[in-house]
């Protein structure tokens, strides 16, 4: 009995193209959703979907390890923590926003104009960055790789990380360590001055 | 570090112990009872649905319409309808309603009832389709004679005396006299026994009755103190009274009489606990046997408690 290899079906010809367009469209739609959704938390969930789409693209490129790491670390690990952080802080953010709007409506015209510039600024930066990256990608001449993808690409990645690229790898880990220490310092309880009410100090420190 | 290891080992041991214990539970018989198939033998004083008992022996309704239960009921769920009979000038029960939807099964009504008519049965499956159907009228409340016997036996209630109207005058008089003489002895047991003895003799010789009663009193005082359930047998001049150790609480005295006694008389002689049955056969009961019976009766008496 001979059986068809689904992976081959995917990696060759029409199936791959179709899958690519589908996943790309999904990812783009979701990312538009991320920036346009008023609800921050839903935007966070959509971001998880975007990362899932990107991991699908990696899958199409036969980069299974990176695809799975994308799901495991970006989609589930990091974004989820961000979403949770948003959930814990969200009510306060909404209140501030409402206050700001209330203040803005009673401002003179000049300040309103300045405000609109200020509000449009992130979008401007995003557009500039997008155009820059797009131009850079277009201007580059991409060669088709002749290297065949080994079945055991995890071993290749592991070897590369521990030999040729061990220095950048270690630097990245130092960066993470620094971030970790910073987070601990931020979250650390402040020294309690008043011994009568120790709980207050701890609570205000940890939140 | 060593401390941590110790604690880790300790916690492993404890968790393992717990797992073992729980696993060993699977070899125990389940304590669950499969309810509709097997109903647990409920305690005698279980307070279930209320019901009206009849006299276990005669089937007479025991309610005398005294309305004590109606008065004592905290939920006011009892409603008694009665009227005064023009003939006997006594209260006659017309209807008796209990709203079981209101009842909280406190059992106060059963405590106050002078004739132990209203009792808590063991029935607790009273689910119904409407609130109205939870109001039980006298038909649904009244137990049959068999059921009444069952609950009287189970709850160890004293047997009620039959209605006075049914008694032939002579027998009633004899029994009454015997009872009074026994009461002078001051002991319930003696009273009961005396009454029985008196009943046995009622037809033959009235004089002997007093004697027997006296003898009975001694017997009762010396041997059967606390309860009225002592069972003793007295050998009087002509009738041989043969007592048999009965189930537990109910004393059955089978009085054998040579001169065939009418049933009505024997029943008239029934007092409190003692059930006297007249039999036609002659029974030989030597004194030894009789004493044995007494001993047995005493042993029985201690056992149940």
């Amino acid at each position, binding site marked *: 009995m001979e059986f068809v290899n689904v992976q081959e079906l995917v990696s060759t010809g029409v199936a791959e193209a179709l899958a690519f367009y589908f996943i790309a469209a999904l990812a783009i739609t979701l990312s538009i959703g991320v920036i346009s959704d008023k609800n921050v938390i*839903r935007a966070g969930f959509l971001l998880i979907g975007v990362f899932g789409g990107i991991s699908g693209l990696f899958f199409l490129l036969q980069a*299974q390890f990176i695809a799975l790491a994308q799901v495991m670390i970006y989609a589930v690990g990091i974004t989820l923590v961000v979403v949770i952080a948003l959930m814990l802080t969200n009510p306060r953010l909404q209140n501030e926003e409402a206050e700001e709007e209330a203040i803005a409506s009673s401002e003179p015209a000049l300040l309103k104009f300045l405000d609109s510039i200020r509000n449009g600024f992130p979008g401007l930066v995003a557009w500039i960055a997008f155009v820059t990256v797009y131009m850079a990608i277009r201007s580059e001449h991409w060669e088709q790789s002749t290297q065949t993808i080994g079945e055991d690409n995890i071993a290749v990645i592991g070897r590369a990380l521990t030999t040729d690229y061990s220095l950048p790898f270690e630097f990245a880990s130092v960066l993470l360590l620094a971030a970790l220490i910073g987070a601990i310092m931020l979250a650390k309880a402040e020294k309690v001055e008043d011994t009568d009410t120790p709980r207050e100090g701890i609570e205000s420190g940890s939140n | 570090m060593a401390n941590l290891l110790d604690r880790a080992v300790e916690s492993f041991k404890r968790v393992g112990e717990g797992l073992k214990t729980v696993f060993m*539970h699977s070899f125990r*018989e389940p*304590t669950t009872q499969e309810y509709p198939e097997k109903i647990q033998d409920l305690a005698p004083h279980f307070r279930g649905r209320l019901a009206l008992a009849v006299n276990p022996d005669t089937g007479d309704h025991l309610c005398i319409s005294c309305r004590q239960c109606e008065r004592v009921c905290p939920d006011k769920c009892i409603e008694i309808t009665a009227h005064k009979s023009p003939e006997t000038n006594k209260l006659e029960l017309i209807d008796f309603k209990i709203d079981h939807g209101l009842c909280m099964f406190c059992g106060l009504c059963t405590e106050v009832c002078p004739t132990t008519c209203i009792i808590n049965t063991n029935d607790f499956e009273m689910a119904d389709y409407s609130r109205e159907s939870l109001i039980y009228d006298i038909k649904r409340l009244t137990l049959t004679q068999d059921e009444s016997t069952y609950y009287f036996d189970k709850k160890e209630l004293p047997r009620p005396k039959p209605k006075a109207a049914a008694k032939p005058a002579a027998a009633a008089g004899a029994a009454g006299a015997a009872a009074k003489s026994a009461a002078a002895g001051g002991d319930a047991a003696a009273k009961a026994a005396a009454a029985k003895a008196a009943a046995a003799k009622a037809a033959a010789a009235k004089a002997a009755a007093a004697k027997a009663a006296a003898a009975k009193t001694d017997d009762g005082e010396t041997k059967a103190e606390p309860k009225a359930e002592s069972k003793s047998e007295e050998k009087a001049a002509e009738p041989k009274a043969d007592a048999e150790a009965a189930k537990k609480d109910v004393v059955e005295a089978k009085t054998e009489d040579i001169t065939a006694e009418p049933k009505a008389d024997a029943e008239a002689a029934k007092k409190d606990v003692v059930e006297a049955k007249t039999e036609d056969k002659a029974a030989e009961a030597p004194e030894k046997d009789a004493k044995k019976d007494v001993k047995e009766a005493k042993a029985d008496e201690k056992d149940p408690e």
Partner: protein
Amino acid sequence: MNAAEIYKLSRLAIFWLSVTFGAVWVACWGVGVFIPSLITGKMPFLLQVDNPSTTVVFIADLLRSLTPILSLLVFIPINAMFMVLFERRSLALFTVRMGPNRHGFDGLAQTAADAVKLLFKEDITPRGADAFMFTLAPIIFFAPSIFGALPLLAAVTNNHDLFKVANLPTGIFYILAAASIPVVALVMAGWASNNKYSLVGGLRSAAQAISYEIPLVLSLVTMCLLAGTLDVVEIVEQQKGGILNWNILGGGALSGYDKLAPYWLNLVDTSFDTSAMFGQFYPVPWLSSIMAFVLVICTVLLFGLYLTGACAEINRIPFDLPEAESELVSGYNTEYSGIKFAIFFLAEFTNLFVVSSIATVMFLGGGDNPIPKWILDRLPLEPISNALGSLLSPLIKDLMFIDPATFWAAFWVIVKVYSIVFFAILVRGTLPRFRIDQLMDFGWKRLIPLALILFVVVVFARTWVVCHG
């Protein structure tokens, strides 16, 4: 002795397992073997076609490649029904009760009735809930248990032709990535329900899953280190040949002893010089044996670590804080009803099955027979198997209905998986729920350091011992 209830439980298990796996195999065989053979004209006794058209061949191939997914779709609902019933009956056994015994024959149809009831219940979306996310959450919760279990299929069926397609070179990593997705669904469900209890349940589950995924993954990574591969089929292949080769006993550290045991026990050729072969497995005279022993301890601890992490990952007692009834009503699924709740329920039990299967594949040798090969060879089993083989030859050879190797692999996998499930139920019957701070302390201050220490110890110990990898 409570023989009656134990007998009922085992009868239930045997009945439902036969139904479950029988149904799955009949479906797989029908779609993956019978219909393709029929339409391409290769089925014996039936119509014979010499040159089937390309369309027909394509359809046949498509059917075959869809078999793994089909098997899971058939398997998951039936299995969940069985596991719920099994859990309830076992718990009843442990708590000296009887458990469900009304529906069907001694309660065999209880969960089937429950499932039907759940499907017909009203599906309510609470006011103020985010309807889209509310609907999406059960789907995201359930989907990973279907596609995440795919690579395991080949491993547990002795690499059967039908399930080979589903195997991936990154097998275990893929499974772990899939297993990490449901937590997103839990947070989503908790948030979308517009309910404080649900939200707290969702947040708790996220915190818990992220904390306990680390020791879980570390323990599996350590096993992969010993095996030298992420491919689950290969990992199962390495562990073949009896209990001494299994990963739980040193990840192959004892396989040298396993190979030499027949010589030492004078079962085979006694003149054979074992010392050379011994040196091949254990290069340094005394140190290697000690290190093999250390490896055995490490892997047993890693197995415990895996089970703990898995328990927390799938929110089972004693780590069921996200759905703690006494504190949070029922956590993230408080607001769910009807079919959505059914999907949550289904996925929860499927997850239990999946983590048990991972433990079986990674630690307990997959479909391997626990009896060492050199004992098995000396048992007079060959005549029996030959007799059975000739008896069932029409099924085996002509219809390809039974594949003996797959059958035995599946049998042992079922035994091992359900033993772990039973153990999980026992734990559920024994241990009380953790408090949230204890849970975090236990995860971060005990399990993760332990996992890291074991990782380092294994890395060093395996340099002196020849392991699977």
